[in-house]
């Protein structure tokens, strides 16, 4: 079992960030929300580790109040 990584784990963070932004190009708001949801489920499955996913959910919720 591992913990949620907080340090950078991407070789090219700008590339990944822009890849995700560009995926939303020319989508409607509703389509964007669906895309985000699908992306979360795909990545969650890839991560696989329930403890990590729980920690990510908690961190994401916390970021809303930041």
């Amino acid at each position, binding site marked *: 079992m591992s913990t949620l990584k*907080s340090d950078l784990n*991407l070789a090219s*963070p700008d590339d*990944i*960030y822009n890849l995700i932004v560009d995926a*939303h190009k020319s989508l409607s708001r509703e389509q964007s929300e669906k895309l985000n949801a699908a992306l979360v489920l795909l990545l969650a499955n890839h991560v696989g580790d329930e403890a990590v996913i729980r920690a990510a959910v908690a*961190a994401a919720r916390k*970021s809303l109040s930041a």
Partner: protein
Amino acid sequence: MATYTYPRYAYVPPPELVLKPGGPQTAPVLIVGAGLVGLTLALDLALKGIPVTVLDEDDTVSIGSRSICQAKRTLEIWHRLGVADRMVAKGVTWDQGEVLLGDEPLYRFDLQPEPGHRFPAFINLQQYYCEQYLVERCIAEDKVDLRFLSKVVGVRPGDEYVEVDVQTPDGVYQIRGQWLVACDGVRSPVRTMLGLPYEGEVFDDQFLIADIRMTADLPNIRRYWFYPPFHPTDSVLLHRQADNVLRVDFQLGRDADAEEEKKPANIDRRLRMMFGPDARWEHEWSSVYKFSCRAMPRFVNGRVIFAGDAAHVVSPFGARGGNSGVEDADNLGWKLALLIEGRASASLLASYDKERGAAARENIRQSTRSTDFITPKFPAARLLRDAALSLARDFPFARAMVNSGRLSRPVAYAESPISSPDDIMATWDVAAPAPGMPLPDAPLLDATRGEVWLTEAVAGRFAVLSFAERASSLDGAMARAIVDMADDIPGFRPILITRDRSGAPDGWTTVIDKSGLAARRCDARDGTTYLVRPDQYVAARARRLHDSWVLAALKRATS
């Protein structure tokens, strides 16, 4: 009262209108535009022995707030031309940036965390000072013929030369150049007269620039706020400049009324919110601007070559405008000089187009990304941007995604036609400079000059740079062969970097790498050799010194 008094340079009636020679004279190089780029190129060529004529339409330096962040690489280039120390002394040195969300610092970044460099990551110095120092240096240089109030109003490219019509207070005359380099800015009259394309993306967001003179106890860092309490809807960038001048960039959004925003009372209201009720300032300059990212498809068009903003323009986030223009001049100068001396083939200019074209595309890519982060183009982009910002408080990974400008660094020429590929059997540290990358800096000791820097040791002409723990361990026969070769190439320098100079070969400049930083930054072992170009970029590298390898790499780098 403004802090800076704009100089007025003397217009001298040109010989063409005074002496009335039989026909137009031909200069080896005509440069149009005495800005950062044209002046840098003129000085570089003159110091290489090539006479240049520079035509500028006015008689002073850049007006207003333009390029302010002068990067390490630019300073290294200007140092070779003898003006960087004066700029560093006048400017504000900085290596760090801070990004804030609201009024809370999110993180700091250090652009040059390790010591052992001649120059800092950046100085902030107003463009007018940089140009003034370059002009004064040009005036002291015999080979630079700097002509003010000389506006190019006609261009006729030909097979052997380019002829231009120059308008002066005394009338119009013609002059020719074997080569014409247009450094005449984003609205380049030369480009317009030739009808050459200049395409790209225009951004809708508006920004307010306010340069103010204010004595304030502020750190020497670049600061960028997202959603600050004093400008809650957008972002703000703050830089310190020379003479206690601050530059503040307020993001205004797409729908702002530029005329309203430009009114001094409205600017003062924004500044009052930022600096508080007790602050006092005087206005130096203000403007509301939009920006664009554009480039010419080709920078070399026959005998007319484009450099700087005339060839490409980017958004200001990242300090990639003026700095990339100076890098253009640096890349072009030695190639033109070799061509004019008859020591290179005309195809060498294709490498200027290829290398600086790639650099322009990379600068545009980076600055477009920064602009897209700062001004998200659609709601989902803003959601992701704001998520990265709020995660950045607690998560270092998200800080790496926050993009307030990826600051100018020299671009690697990955696909350069004049680089020689590494031997496939040789292994190199990824941080070491591969062919097409600039040589890193490092402190060295010279027997006669004392402290000297790696970038100083290799500046201006081709250099062979060999490393050996002990000088005596360098292959003597090879060392002599390199010296024989150097005799045939003007200015070509063999340099040995070592810890122990005893037994150093004749004809080599030997420098001591006391700290070991030069060897570490170049991933050097005994025998490791770099061929360095006049612009301090690596042309080739090998694990072993061999004269036939040097010759082949040199040939490739000049053809």
